[in-house]
C-alpha cells in the first residue's frame, strides 16, 4: 500500500529539525505546517513578508492584510516579524532559510527541479519558486511518483522548463523517499508494500536501495 496524501505530508514534516527556519510552498507543502510538532521552535517563513507565521485565524481574528504566499488569511505568532519583499528574498537567496518544502513536476537524478510550468498549459508564473530552489539550505520536494498516465516524474534529465539546477536534496512521493545522487536516485525509505520492482518500473532513472 502506497502512502496517502496525509502520509506524505506527515513524512515531509519529519524532515523538519528543531529551531529551523522553514518555507512551505503552495498546495500540499502548506499542509505540512499542521504536522510539525509543537515545541520544535520552528519559524515558518512566508515569502510575501512574514517570519513566524501561525495557523489560520479564528473567524473573528481574520485580518485581510495578514496573508501567506498563497493569499490565505493566517496569523502571526509571538516573535513574528514582517518585512518588505526585498528583505524576504534576501533571507531566501542569502541562505538564511534552513529548509524549503515545495511541490514538483519533475526531479532529475542530479537534483535539477522543474516545478513551475508545463508548455502548452496556461501560464501561472514562477512566483518565489526559483528563488527558494536556488537559495534554501535544504530543499525537499513533495510530488507524486509518476504522472496520471504513468510517465515517471523522477527522471535522468528533466524535460519540462527548469526551476533551478541541482537544488533538490530529497523527494517524497507516495512510494517512498528518494535522494538525488548524481546519475541515480537512492531510495532511503519505501512505503509499505511498495516493491523495489514497482519503483524501478515507475522511475525514469536508476534507483539504488539502502539495505
Amino acid at each position, binding site marked *: 500500500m502506497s502512502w496517502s496524501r496525509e502520509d506524505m505530508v506527515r513524512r515531509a514534516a519529519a524532515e523538519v529539525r528543531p529551531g529551523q527556519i522553514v518555507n512551505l510552498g503552495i498546495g500540499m507543502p502548506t499542509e505540512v505546517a499542521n504536522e510539525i510538532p509543537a515545541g520544535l521552535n520552528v519559524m515558518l517563513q512566508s515569502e510575501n513578508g512574514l517570519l513566524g507565521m501561525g495557523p489560520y485565524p479564528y473567524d473573528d481574528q*481574520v485580518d485581510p492584510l495578514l496573508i501567506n504566499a498563497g493569499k490565505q488569511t493566517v496569523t502571526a505568532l509571538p516573535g513574528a516579524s514582517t518585512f*518588505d*519583499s526585498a528583505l524576504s528574498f534576501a533571507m531566501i537567496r542569502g541562505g538564511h532559510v534552513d529548509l524549503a518544502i515545495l511541490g514538483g513536476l519533475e526531479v532529475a537524478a542530479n537534483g535539477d527541479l522543474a516545478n513551475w510550468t508545463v508548455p502548452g498549459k496556461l501560464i501561472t508564473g*514562477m512566483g518565489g519558486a526559483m528563488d527558494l530552489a536556488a537559495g534554501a539550505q535544504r530543499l525537499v520536494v513533495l510530488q507524486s511518483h509518476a504522472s496520471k498516465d504513468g510517465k515517471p516524474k523522477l527522471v535522468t534529465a528533466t524535460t519540462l522548463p527548469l526551476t533551478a539546477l541541482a537544488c533538490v536534496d530529497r523527494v517524497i512521493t507516495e512510494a517512498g523517499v528518494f535522494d538525488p545522487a548524481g546519475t541515480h536516485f537512492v531510495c532511503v525509505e519505501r512505503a509499505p508494500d511498495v516493491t523495489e520492482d514497482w519503483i524501478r518500473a515507475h522511475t525514469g532513472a536508476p534507483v539504488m536501495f539502502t539495505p
Partner: protein
Amino acid sequence: MSRSPAPGTDKIFPTVAAALADQLRDGLRIMSGGFGLSGIAEACIDEIARRAPRGLTIISNNCGNQGQGLAVLLQRKLVAQVICSYVGGNPDLAEQYLAGTVKVELNPQGTFAERIRAGGAGLGGFFTPTGAGTVVAEGKETRLIDGRPHVFETPLRGDLAIVRAQVADVFGNARFHRTARNFSPLMAMAATTTVLEVDRLVPVGDIDPDDVHLPGLFVDRIVHVPTHRNVIEFRTTRPRESA
C-alpha cells in the same frame, strides 16, 4: 525631479482624482504595491480605471486577481504590458496574454523585488543565482561567482507608484500593516512620482522615527482614504477549540 523636503507642506491632496490629475497619460509605467488583492491602493486603481489611460505598463507582483484590483484595468483593455512574477487565478490576464494583446514579462519574485529596489537605490543591476540555467537567464549575461552561475538582472523603474500604507504623517513617513508592506516601499523608491494612499493621516511627530517603514522623502503625494474594501482572496479560518 523635485521633491518637497519640508515636512507638512504641499504633499496632501484632497482626493486621489486630484493627486493623479496631471499624472495619468497613455503609455505610463505604473508600479502598484500589494500582494494579489491584499494591501493594494484601491482608490488609486479605481481612479486610473475611471480616467482610462491606454497602453499602460503595469509593474506588480500579480496584476490583480479574479477580475478585481488591477485586473479591472485589464478588463477595460488599458494594459499593454505586465511585468510580474505570478499570474495564476487571473483569467483576464491569461485571456489577453493568449490573444497576444498583452505582453507578460515574468520574473522570479525575489528578482522582481530586487530589480525594483535596485531601480530606487541607484544601482545599475545585480547578479543573482536565481534563474541560472533556466529560461529566465536566456539572453542575459551569466557570470561564475564563487564557482556558481549568477544571472545579471537590470533595475526596474516606473513613472508612477501607487501604494497604500496603514498610517502616514503629512511628510509621507509611512508604516504598513502586517504583510501589506511587500513591494510598496520598494516601488515608492523606484518611481518618478509616488502617490501614497493612507488609511490614517497623522501630524509629523506622531510616528516614532524607529517605526517608519518608508521615509517620507520617497513619497510625493498623500491622500487620506479612510476606508478600503480589503477583499480577501482566500478566507481560511480554524475552529475555536471547545472550552
